[in-house]
């Protein structure tokens, strides 16, 4: 019975081993991410269908977006994925909690930078240029219905992605508080790892949104 006292921190009684607990956590998170893949997948499928039906309008709509800001935000999110991975690695290797907090705060700063660029240089610009169907629409022409459809997809897809980023920032705030309160060690850091999976997933969604909304169809003259 003395062995009870050497239970690793954060080890729940229903599991046989720490390893089993860790794997169960991963499995559960991936099942949640599977529902997320199909949630975003529904929008991607709808995008494919409407793009096929209104190809020229969708390319015209895509040209309304600024590639520079989309590419910049892709880079910002990739940086944030690296800092998240390094935060988890620091906890895994028993690094000081100060270093974990620095990586987490850096991840949050990059996530906030993404949202800042999105709001200030993209959505606000779209509003000023009259590219929001039903709110501010200034352009005309024969392709208008199709371009409006494209912009609707753009706002719903980037909007839901941004919502996931906001949730991610909330999760990271909780992780910082937990780290400050010494909740993690080299033996137990599952919340960090599980949240990392979520953060990387949101990064992957953007990795697909960037080419689908900004690039495909081409940006070369005459495209």
């Amino acid at each position, binding site marked *: 019975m003395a062995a009870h006292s050497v239970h690793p921190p954060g080890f729940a009684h229903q599991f046989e081993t720490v390893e089993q607990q860790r794997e169960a956590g991963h499995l559960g998170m*991936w099942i949640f991410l599977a529902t997320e*893949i*199909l949630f975003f997948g529904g929008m991607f499928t709808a995008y*494919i269908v409407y793009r096929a039906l209104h190809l020229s309008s969708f390319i015209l709509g895509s040209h309304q977006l600024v590639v520079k800001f989309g590419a910049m935000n*892709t880079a910002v999110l990739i940086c944030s*994925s690296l800092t998240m*991975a*390094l935060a988890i690695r620091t906890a895994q290797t028993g690094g000081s909690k100060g270093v974990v907090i620095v990586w987490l705060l850096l991840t949050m700063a990059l996530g906030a930078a993404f949202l800042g660029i999105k709001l200030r240089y993209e959505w606000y610009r779209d509003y000023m240029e009259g590219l929001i169907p039903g709110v501010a629409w200034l352009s005309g022409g024969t392709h208008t219905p199709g371009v409006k459809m494209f912009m609707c997809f753009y706002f719903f897809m980037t909007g839901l992605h941004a919502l996931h980023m906001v949730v991610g920032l909330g999760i990271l705030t909780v992780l910082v508080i937990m780290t400050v309160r010494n909740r993690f060690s080299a033996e137990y850091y599952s919340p960090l790892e599980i949240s990392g999976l979520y953060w990387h997933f949101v*990064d992957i969604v953007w*990795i697909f949104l960037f080419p689908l909304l900004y690039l495909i169809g081409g940006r070369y003259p005459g495209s």
Partner: protein
Amino acid sequence: MTEEHHASDYHAPHIVPVGTYVLVFLALMLGTALTTWIAYIDLRAWNTVAALTIAVCKMLLVVLFFMHVKYSKGLTRIVIVGAFFWLGIMITLTCSDMLTRHWEIVPEGWSAGALHLFRLLF
């Protein structure tokens, strides 16, 4: 299975070297630059193929290394493959339906057609 066994049965999870993370990060940044650059070159339909191929490669790098799937167990992998399999079902069946239909354009617009139908019925 004794209590002592539980405590000592702990296998340290795989720790990815910092160098691997940095390499994956650099590959992802390179992929972003490459996909942006290719969009400005006229490849016709291949622009779309190139953009999506690069996106899939970037996704695989994130999933395998940042999300540690390269070092994960079978059951987790089955869930991931299952998720993408179902996504594949959704996309393929939707497209096979849509692309094999004979779409006809209603000349006076769907609303006029619906109104006509409404008047006929009521």
